[in-house]
């Protein structure tokens, strides 16, 4: 037994190409000669080109990964990396061979781009591919969006970059941490399978509910108070006998304005601007339209270099709704515990 685990992780040096080791900590500037290609220049004068590809959402086959490994061997000394947005990057590509590499990658179905003022790779959780909690399908939506916005990925023609994250249930906050986010929403309360109720710990299940919507029922089961349930799904995660509710009522919300970096007005989580759209696989027209609607308003109105959230902060959320044409509803009002922070306590209206 004792020989399982305890290993940790490979040393830094093991997977990093020689030019990076040599110039470790000495990188000085970078240029982006074309979308998807970053040229980094070191104090030593050394140079490193990387080529960035979009990745299929959530799952990739061993077969394809092996083909990408082959490309890496051929064009980047056998090295690559996966970025923090799951882009695939060939590291240290011979400059003369960049066009050839791009040609091959694109022929394989991997668009090159996603740098600077473009749409970057889309992040998506597994959802219907492998999870039991989703209210929608992140990979499906990611694919539909990627197809619709491919030219934005391949070109630097947006005011600033556009990052889109998708999480198919309330568990994952990626969606609140992107310029545009999509979050799965269950509109129905979970279903209690009474026969199964012995399996999980009743106190843990009851305790897992943030709004105290789960009440004991008889000796072994529980019941969910409809008016209290906020469909957060915590119970469905913690108890095998509770399943997400009516799939006809599932769908997703759209959030805007997540930002992590400390420039401008600093980091903040995004805000939910569309509370619900219905699931319509495989092309998810509503999601595509919503994203395009938001992106277009931003593109039209933003200053050069102005990220989605900085734009909204400048114009105000009232004008965001006006300019995007998104309808408001009572669901935009945050009535949850910390919602007060988002009420309006000034008279600075943007009529």
């Amino acid at each position, binding site marked *: 037994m004792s020989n399982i685990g305890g290993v940790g992780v490979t040393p830094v040096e093991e997977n990093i190409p020689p030019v990076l080791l040599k110039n470790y900590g000495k990188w000085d500037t970078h240029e982006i000669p074309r979308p998807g290609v970053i040229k980094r220049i070191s104090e030593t004068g050394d140079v490193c080109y990387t080529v960035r590809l979009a990745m299929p959402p959530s799952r990739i086959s061993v077969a394809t990964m092996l083909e990408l490994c082959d490309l890496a061997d051929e064009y980047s000394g056998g090295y690559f990396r996966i970025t923090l947005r799951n882009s695939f990057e060939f590291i240290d590509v011979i400059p003369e061979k960049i066009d050839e590499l791009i040609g091959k990658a694109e022929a394989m179905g991997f668009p090159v781009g996603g740098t600077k003022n473009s749409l970057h790779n889309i992040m998506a959780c597994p959802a219907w591919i492998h999870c039991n909690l989703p209210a929608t399908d992140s990979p499906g939506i990611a694919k539909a969006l990627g197809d619709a916005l491919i030219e934005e990925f391949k070109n630097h023609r947006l005011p600033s970059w556009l990052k889109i994250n998708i999480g198919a249930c*309330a568990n994952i906050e990626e969606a*609140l941490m992107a310029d545009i986010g999509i*979050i799965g*929403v269950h*509109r*129905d309360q979970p279903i209690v399978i009474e026969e199964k109720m012995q399996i999980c710990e009743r106190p843990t299940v009851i305790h897992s509910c*943030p709004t105290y919507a789960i009440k004991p029922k008889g000796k072994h089961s529980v019941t969910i108070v409809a*008016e209290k*349930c*906020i*469909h*957060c799904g915590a119970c469905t995660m913690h108890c095998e006998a509770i399943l997400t509710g*009516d799939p*006809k*009522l599932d*769908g997703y*919300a759209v959030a805007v304005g997540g930002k992590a970096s400390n420039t401008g007005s600093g980091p903040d*989580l*995004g*805000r*939910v*601007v569309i*509370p*619900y*759209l*219905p699931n319509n696989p495989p092309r998810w027209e509503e999601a595509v339209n919503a994203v395009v609607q938001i992106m277009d308003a931003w593109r039209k109105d933003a200053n050069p270099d102005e990220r989605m959230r900085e734009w909204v902060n*400048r*114009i*105000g*959320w*009232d*004008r*965001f*709704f*006006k300019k995007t044409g998104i309808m*408001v*509803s*009572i*669901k*935009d*009002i*945050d*009535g*949850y515990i*910390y*919602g*007060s922070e*988002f*009420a*309006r*306590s*000034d*008279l*600075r*209206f*943007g*009529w």
Partner: protein
Amino acid sequence: MSDTPYMDELSRGPWPSHAKELKRTRYPVEMYEEAMKEKYTQWGHGGMSNVPGLGSGAIARKSRRPDIISHSHLIRVLGTPGNFYKASTFRKICKIADKYGDGSLHVLTTNYNIEICGLMSNEDMKGVTLELNAMGFDVGSAGDAIRNIPDCMGPALCEYAVVDTPRLKHFLTKHYIDDIQFPRFGYKIKTKMSGCPNECGKAVLHGDVGIIGVFRDLPRVDNERLREWAGNGGNIALVCDNCPADAMRWDNRKLVIDGDRCVRCMYCINRVPAIKPGDDRGVAITVGGKMKGKFGPMKGKVVFPFIEITPPDYKELVRAFDRICDVFDEHGLKKERMGDMIQRIGFDKYLEMLGVEVSPMLFSSPRRNTFYHWKAEELGGAV
């Protein structure tokens, strides 16, 4: 040595002295002197006094020092519209105060009432009230009632006024006088009014209900006057620079205010005589400002961003105010301030109870989570 060394010290110096004032009255100065010595109030429990027929306005105060005084009550007199006073009228109030009380006044309280202090009996409190009533003044504004509805001077003296706050004060006080005099809620309801977003009335910050004059169109610019003003040294470039919404463009001849940016903050209007508030005028109403209570200090929240002000019956305003009071009456717990009630209920649900029309003016930002409730009728399909 003096009996009142602390008060003597507080009678020195250039700032007006309450100690000196108290000494000019029959106020029991030992109570205050002892407080300073002990660093502890010498007064005891207070509350609504039981003057028959008088629902509110009389505040009873016991003493912890029966050796000095047993008690000392006071009466709250509702302040006038705009807080203007005629000396001849005020003399009469002084006379009443001197006749029934200890000759000390509170002019004004932080809710803009006059307090006649040092009353010793129910009869005196009744006497004060009747004499005031006879001269057209009234009492109230204590206990779990609608309190005094103070206003700024508004158009009576202010160039910025967007709505007529003194007339609103007069109307609302008359209209709600029963609720001002007969406590019927779970806790008090304090209202504050400002004639414009400069907010001299601090209505948003400390009104259970805040009523503030606002305009929806853009500030009005008189370019001819502006050129003249700029020609005489007015620094219009600085004003443009300081506009918080970066909405002003001045080309040395003409100022253009960008309707897509301006947030009607009043700044340019305050600085430049040639810029005035717009013409599409009304009031915004906020609710729930307060300091203490379960959830601590809270700013008010906009619930009606724009309401037409139409004398003589101010129908829209009354409807909104009634609705706010009714929801508080129905849902507020005992001794729960409006802001705490709203927090307990949830702001979204509260807005539904009020029956407001949802608009992007109701929030500074939309929500941060997807934890909304869905009503049965919303579950039919897409919304």
